[in-house]
Structures are given as structure tokens and as C-alpha cells.
């Protein structure tokens, strides 16, 4: 009865009444847009718990020695902070939230390839998260191994390592199935006329990310199973006291966990690649280079894991090999940065919050990336391995990079997702506060790291205190900025002015449909342009 050309009456996906009512219409949702929101609310909740744990650490670090907690508790706090942030926020983060919402729309599809599998992925995510929370409260106490679970401490400590690693295993399934879903979606469900090189660059980044999720996650899966078996049966895979090899654990762990950082980063770069052309009203510079560089980062990213292990006792040959490849993998990332900046040249720039967040992203990513080169070079890494320098590096990259890209994405796409606009002035003020707070929080860590401040230590010599206090104050400023930002966004989503279909004059497909979109996204056949960024 309803064929492709018939125009259906518009009902926003938020108002659509299907088989289920009330809360069940959310829990049982197979609509990729609703699943996006489900992920977003769960992930943002875990993010804020992670932030509070970070604040607790910053409070502790205000004075040497015990300030508000003892050493064992500090270990548990940074372990949970890492587990939450890595497994429950930044790995699913951009893919499961904005990937879910916008991948089908960007390629002109009604939904992902396997909507029920998509829903199942979210359910598993919730189960894994509950298991992670359980690991905190069961009788053996929260794990204190760090999120990296290095043997032999992880094989011998009496804390709830098994429950925490089992939680990570379950969360891994969610990641694998999302990756699988996205690969099939991109291969099979592009609208007629949209070849791979007609896709926008956000789907390209999601495509590269999905392959990493699919191929790398099983390796951490088997590694965690072996860790659990080792604890349960005293086998001796990793524990040297039982004849095992602790380095074997590190290799297996990082064979996943390095590619995992590209799972975090590639969609972030994809978001920035969408925002810049829109707010410069200009074609992206070097479309093919950016598309291929995403694949290159994914591919080469599988070959660099040893740079986390330079001081572990690996051979010199291994060390120079991994260092060489680490420098090589930096090249495609740099290509993207050059292309973003070049896109701005002679552009007609519209200084709105998403663009400002994108600029801040580029700034923080450059700092994070170049300090990564310092870490990638064996000679300098030996000085700063396991110091606060590393902590600052990865927070600049993950938080300053991917985190701020996430904020950029919300500011860019909120009007489309909710059909409402937020207050620009408050968004910009929050951004400035975030920027100041972020740099105050993490930059001092570079300095004291080089000076010898170790990571994961709750105690330190008095000479580091001024920097620690500065860092902690920065943390509070950042917290204030985050709260202001979120409050503004929530207010906008709930009661902001109605947003038009295309508030930013964007050219990709999501801006050709109403805000918010209807259930099946395109009530009329979308017009597929061969160049997704055709601004003239």
C-alpha cells in the first residue's frame, strides 16, 4: 500500500507510537535513533561518575600523603575511573551514539543492517555495565590493578578482578556487534547512486573504526578469559611464580588496547571532518586523502602496540620496530589536521559553538599528538614512561581530542536530534571555561612528569605540590564548565526554540530532512549528490 514515492505524514521518531508503549518503547526500540539516545544517556551518566572519580583523585593529590583516602582506595579509584572511562564511555562513545544516529542517514538508509542486533548490543552494554558496578561492591572489594589488569598483580590480588574482567568481556561483545552491524550497513545499505567515494567522511571514519572493533576486540576477549582461568585454576600463563610470562599478558592486552584508541579517535576525527566544511561553507580539502587516511590509521594502528612496553624488557629489535611504526601511524593523522586547516582557507567562516569546539579539538589534539611522538621515541620514552607525562598525553588525546569532539558533535547535531536549539552565548562561555580548566588540569602534569612524578601514585615529594594544586584547581574549573555546558544543552533539548531542518546550512543528508527526523528518516527518496560537500 505504501510505495517509495508516496509521501507519508510526518511523525517525529520521538513521538512515534509503535508496538510498545512508555518505557518499553525505549527498552525494546530497534530504531537506530532511539538506540543512539539510550546509549547517550547511559554513557553520559558513566562519564559523570568517571568525572567525579577524577575529582576525588584531584582532591587527594592536593597534598602529599593521605589527603582524603589511603593508598589502596586511591588504587581502586583510578582503576574504576579507567574502567568506566575506557570501556563504558570512550570506546562505545562516538560510534554507538552519533554513529548510530547518523550513519544510516548519511548513506540514505532507513536504519542499520540489523536493527534487532543493534538493540541487543545496547542490552549487552547495560549488562556489562551492571557487572562492572557489581565488581565495585561485591565482597572481595573493588579491583585495584588499574584498568590495564597487568599480571602478576592481577592474577594474585584478592580484589574482584574476575567480575571486572568478565564485565569488560561482555562490554567487548557490544563493541564487536556494533562494528559488525556498521560494516554490513555501509556495504549493503547505501542509497542508489552513493558509491563508497560519494559517502560523507563520517561514515568513512565509522567504517575504519568498525573493522578495528570487529578484529581487535576478540583478542582482549581471549586474554581476559585466560586471566580469569589463571586466577581460577592457578595455571601459570602469566604469573612468573607459576612459570608464566607477564610480558605475554602485556602483549596480548595491548594488541587490542592500542587499536582501541583508534576506535576512540577515528569517529572523533570523522565528526570534525563534518563540522569544518559546514562552518566554512567550503568543500573539504583532500576528501580522498582523509578517507584513505582513516583506513591507514586503522591498519597501521594494529602494528604499534609495543610502544606501551618499551621499558618492559622487550628486545631492542622489537623496540625500534614499534617506534618506527608509531612514527608512521602519526602521518595519516597529521594529514587530516593539515586538510582541516586548509579547508578553512578562503572559507566563509561562521563562528558557532560546534566550530569553536572543533578548533579547540584541533589545538588539544596537536598537543596530545606531538607529545605522543615524544613517547613513541624509545630514548625519550624511557625517561617519562609511567609518569604523569603519559597521563597528560592520553588525557589530551582522549579527553581533549575525542571528548571535545563528542561535545562538538552534540552542539552540531542536537538541533537535528531534538528539533530544538540551545543558547549559543552560554555554550561559548562554557567552552572557554572548559578550555581553561582542561589546560590547567593537564598541562602541569607534562611538566612534573618529566621531572619524575610517577603515575598512579597518591603520594609525592613536596616539590611537586604547586603543580598538583594548580592541576586540581583546573579540575574544579573544568567541572564547573562541564556542568554549565550540559545544563545548557539539556535546557535547549527540552525547551529551546524550535530548530529548522538546516540551521547551519550543511550539505550532508541529515540536513535535508526535518528536525527531528521521522521514523524511517527519508519520507521522500533522498537526492544523492556525487560530492557530499558541494558548497558553492
Amino acid at each position, binding site marked *: 500500500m505504501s510505495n517509495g514515492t508516496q509521501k*507519508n505524514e510526518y511523525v517525529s521518531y520521538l513521538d512515534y507510537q509503535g508496538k510498545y508503549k512508555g518505557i518499553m518503547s525505549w527498552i525494546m526500540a530497534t530504531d537506530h535513533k532511539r538506540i543512539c539516545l539510550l546509549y547517550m544517556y547511559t554513557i553520559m551518566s558513566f562519564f559523570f561518575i568517571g568525572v567525579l572519580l577524577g575529582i576525588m583523585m584531584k582532591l587527594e593529590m592536593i597534598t602529599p600523603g593521605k589527603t582524603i583516602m589511603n593508598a589502596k582506595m586511591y588504587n581502586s579509584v583510578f582503576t574504576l575511573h579507567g574502567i568506566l572511562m575506557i570501556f563504558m564511555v570512550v570506546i562505545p562513545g562516538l560510534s554507538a551514539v552519533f554513529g548510530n544516529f547518523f550513519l544510516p542517514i548519511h548513506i540514505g538508509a532507513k536504519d542499520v543492517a540489523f536493527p534487532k542486533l543493534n538493540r541487543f548490543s545496547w542490552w549487552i552494554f547495560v549488562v556489562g555495565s551492571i557487572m562492572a558496578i557489581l565488581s565495585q561492591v561485591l565482597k572481595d572489594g573493588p579491583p585495584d590493578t588499574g584498568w590495564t589488569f597487568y599480571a602478576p598483580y592481577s592474577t594474585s590480588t584478592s580484589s574482584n578482578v574476575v567480575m571486572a574482567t568478565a564485565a569488560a568481556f561482555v562490554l567487548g561483545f557490544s563493541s564487536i556487534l556494533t562494528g*559488525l552491524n556498521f560494516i*554490513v550497513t555501509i556495504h*549493503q545499505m547505501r542509497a542508489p547512486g552513493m558509491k563508497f567515494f560519494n559517502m560523507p567522511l563520517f561514515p568513512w571514519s565509522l567504517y575504519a573504526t568498525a573493522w578495528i572493533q570487529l*578484529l581487535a576486540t576478540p583478542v582482549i576477549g581471549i586474554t581476559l578469559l585466560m586471566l580469569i582461568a589463571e586466577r581460577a585454576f*592457578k595455571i601459570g600463563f602469566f604469573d612468573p611464580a607459576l612459570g608464566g610470562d607477564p610480558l605475554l599478558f602485556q602483549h*596480548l592486552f595491548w594488541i587490542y588496547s592500542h587499536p582501541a584508541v583508534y576506535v576512540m579517535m577515528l569517529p572523533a576525527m570523522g565528526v570534525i571532518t563534518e563540522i569544518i566544511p559546514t562552518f566554512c561553507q567550503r568543500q573539504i580539502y583532500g576528501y580522498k586523502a582523509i578517507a584513505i587516511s582513516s583506513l591507514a590509521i586503522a591498519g597501521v594502528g594494529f602494528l604499534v602496540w609495543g610502544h606501551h612496553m618499551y621499558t618492559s624488557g622487550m628486545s631492542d629489535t622489537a623496540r625500534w620496530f614499534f617506534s618506527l611504526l608509531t612514527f608512521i601511524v602519526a602521518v595519516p593523522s597529521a594529514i587530516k589536521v593539515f586538510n582541516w586547516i586548509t579547508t578553512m582557507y578562503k572559507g566563509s567562516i561562521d563562528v558557532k559553538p560546534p566550530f569553536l569546539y572543533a578548533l579547540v579539538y584541533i589545538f588539544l589534539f596537536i598537543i596530545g599528538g606531538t607529545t605522543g611522538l615524544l613517547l613513541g621515541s624509545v630514548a625519550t620514552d624511557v625517561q617519562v614512561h609511567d609518569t604523569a607525562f603519559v597521563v597528560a598525553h592520553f588525557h589530551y588525546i582522549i579527553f581533549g581530542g575525542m571528548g571535545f569532539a563528542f561535545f562538538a558533535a552534540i552542539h552540531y547535531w542536537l538541533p537535528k536530534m531534538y528539533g530544538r536549539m540551545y543558547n549559543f552565548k552560554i555554550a561559548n562561555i562554557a567552552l572557554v571555561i572548559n578550555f581553561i580548566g582542561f589546560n590547567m588540569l593537564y598541562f602541569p602534569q607534562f611538566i612534573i612528569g618529566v621531572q619524575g612524578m610517577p603515575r598512579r601514585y597518591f603520594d609525592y615529594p613536596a616539590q611537586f605540590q604547586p603543580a598538583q594544586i594548580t592541576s586540581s584547581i583546573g579540575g574544579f574549573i573544568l567541572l564547573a564548565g562541564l556542568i554549565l555546558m550540559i545544563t545548557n544543552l539539556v535546557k535547549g533539548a527540552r525547551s529551546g526554540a524550535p530548530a529548522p531542518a538546516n540551521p547551519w546550512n550543511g550539505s550532508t543528508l541529515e540536513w535535508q530532512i526535518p528536525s527531528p527526523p521521522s521514523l524511517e528518516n527519508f519520507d521522500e527518496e533522498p537526492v544523492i549528490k556525487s560530492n557530499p560537500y558541494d558548497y558553492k
Partner: protein
Amino acid sequence: MVEHTAHIEEHRDDEASKLGMWLFIFTELLLFGGLFLVYSVFRMQYPVSFHESSLELSVAIGAINTVILLVSSMTVAMALTAIQKNNTKHALIFIGITLFCAAVFLFNKYLEWGAKFHHGLYPGSELMQLLDRGHHLYFSLYFFMTGLHALHIVIGMTLLFVCYFKVKNKSINNKDYVLLENGALYWHLVDLIWIFVFPLLYLIS
């Protein structure tokens, strides 16, 4: 509104289904690949112990199990051909034989493991703790690898049971058989994994 919902759920893409199953199979290959990597590391370290320990396994039972799985892969492929030719009766028989083979495999596994348990050899046992490093690692890997594989046999059997009932109620038929195709593909994977596990554990003497 009802047409809307029906429209989305009617979306059928066999190529997408098959691609999805192939991708899932890649993840399984990487899962077992990691395990085989660990096996090779420890075998390189303790070649003599691994060789000695493998003498404790019955090559005969292992070989019989290998043949059983190969036959079962053949019968599940025959079931697929049967359904493509609209021969429901034969399809059901062949799926049934496949499931029977799988059950026999598991029964043999039960006999093998049972024998080891009877001698006090099981993960975490006192005897295991007394073994030296190489032997301990070999038997731990033996239980881990065959155990994880047996779990996948059970998963495969579950898929095939579902296929059996769907063939019976005609939701898998000669016009729509991608579910059976995928189930058979998964079964071939489970067989393939055993083809690697068998020589690594049984034939290194």
C-alpha cells in the same frame, strides 16, 4: 502506522545476512587465534614437555572425532542442497545426522575428559599443581582449548536446532534459506577450529 512497522520489518537482504555471519566468523578466528598464539609461545618454550604430555591423549579418539566432524560438515552442506531443491524431508534428515554427529563428538569428549578427571587431572586439581611447568601448561591449554571449542559446538548445535524447527515449519524453504546457510557456515567454522586443535594437541608426538 501498521504498514510502516511491517515495511521496516519486511526488509530482507540475504547478502547482508551472509556478510554479517562471515564477519562474525572473523571474530571467532581472532578469538581462537589469540589462544593458538599463546599455545605456540609455550610450546616453543617447553617442546619436550608438550611432546611427552601429548602422549597421554588418545590419537584414536581424536581422529574419530575429526572424522565425525568432517562427516557432519558434509551432512549439513547436503541439508542445504536438499532445501535448495525443496526437499524438506531430506533436509531434516541431514540436519538430524549433523546434530547426531555433534552429540557423538561431545560424548567422546566426555569420555576423554572423564578419563583425565578419573586420574585426578583437571584444572585446579592437586595433581595438576604437582606437574612441572611444561606439562602443567600443556594440560591447562588442553582443557582450555577443547573446552572453548566444545562450547562452540554447543552454540553451533543450538543454531542448527533452530534451523531444524524452522525447516519443519517451512519458514526455511527453497525460496528463503539464508538462515540455514549461515548455520551451516558457522558449523563449518566449528569444524575448522577442530582441524587446527587436533594436530596441535594430539599429533605433536
